[in-house]
């Protein structure tokens, strides 16, 4: 079992395998990605950086595409819900 790395999703610590993308870490944490214009909670759709549904605030950078970014130990992730 490779060593897990810890990230924070909406204040809660989540342990993930090295190489895990932020979108997967958010799903493991049970977090939605964003709240849509009409208030629907959304999750990833395309998994390849095209649809922008998975955007979240990652280490203070808003609107980051979480499916395109790999988790780094101590990363702070905030989502709409």
């Amino acid at each position, binding site marked *: 079992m490779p060593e897990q790395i810890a990230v924070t999703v909406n204040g809660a610590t989540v342990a*993930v*395998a090295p*190489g*895990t*993308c932020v*979108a*997967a*870490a958010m*799903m*493991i944490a049970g977090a*939605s990605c964003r709240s*849509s*214009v*009409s208030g*629907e*909670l*959304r*999750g*990833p*759709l*395309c*998994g*390849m*950086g*095209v*649809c*922008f*549904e998975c*955007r979240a605030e990652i280490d203070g*950078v*808003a*609107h980051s595409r979480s*499916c*395109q*970014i*790999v*988790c780094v130990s101590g990363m702070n992730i905030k989502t709409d819900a």
Partner: protein
Amino acid sequence: MRSSNSQFDVIVVGGGPAGIASAVSAAQSGKRVAIADDNPALGGQIWRGETVHSDPAARAWISKLRESSVQLFPGTRVFDQPVPGTLNAETLDGRVAFDYGKLILATGARERFLPFPGWTLQNVMGAGALQALVKAGLPIQGKRVVVAGTGPLLLAVASYLKKHGAIVVAVCEQASRASLAAFALGLFAHPGKIAQAWELRGELAGVDLLTSAWPLTAAGNQILESVVISSKRTPKRIACDYLACGFHLVPNTELASLVGCRLEGGFVQVDDLQNTSVPNVFCAGEPTGIGGVDLALLEGQIAGLAAGGHRAAAENLRKQRAKLRSFARSLEKTFQLRPELKRLTTPETIVCRCEDVTLSKLRPHGSWRAAKLQSRCGMGPCQGRICGPATQFLLGWAAESVRPPVLPVKLRNLTYESDQPKGELASVM
């Protein structure tokens, strides 16, 4: 450093099979070659995660790439060509400009999504998307998955998920059994593909493989709980954790359009040596026609050799390409969308997910442009990459001009006159 410039003889945009083959082939002639790719790691959508180690072709090409002089720029998104011969790209740290002599576009394809009630629920996603997320760490062990849509990707995804412990409840392919049988017969011209197809069949033993079947609705409280499948005229509700649903692929042609390449039927037009209509700009792989990894590798080699000045070597590969193109044509025929799928989208169904625009708000408009102006359809951050192909199928609208930046870019990366950081401007989508 927020901003930098790099000069190359050949720039390849896209680091999937076509891009890797292009770059390796171009670098053989001693040219300075670079690959810029959106993703954190090269390999594209198909050679991702452990596939890089398990697929012999992937292993071979990636080791050729590592041994070559090609410079790699992962996590680099090309968003503009301010003047011919220069590309601007955004990285996680800032901006980079590439000056090129020759440009090879190997921008790949994305899944086509069709809107149906419930498709915006969490855990309804593309077939390739779920596979990509599992490769990137999403646990799938013991989860119930319905795989649906159309195209050869469905079986590959179902097999991958099953191998990783998912309970694949059903695979729903909208194409008919007769059409798939004709396709299978055609595979005799492509022995390698038969072996792949047999392997998949074996791996999917025990999985319900439905043809002429598609999802009618997905239901759940914010998150998917069940899907109703139309099969043999009797709708059937299936409880599941994920619906992995993609309707074959559409090419990523935005950058080709931006640099002025001629498109026909949605694909970039190329000659025998993968030259586009724009001098010094080549295109290889899915943007020239959805043909899969073997054709992408071959077109990549042709483009790379031609861009590197090895015209004769490039010409030698033309016959092989013609054969693989015939496979691409049979793919297109087999997995074309049946008109009944247009009825999946109800007036209340959201078509544009970025701006939450429903079909009823789109219908009154006569064109993509009018709908954009009046309803904000296609005006969100995906810039119509998801709803564009859907409205094309549903309403017959063709996407019009492409404007820079072809991707949402941070404001500070658009104001790049000097190498000095400009201070923290607001980050805009």
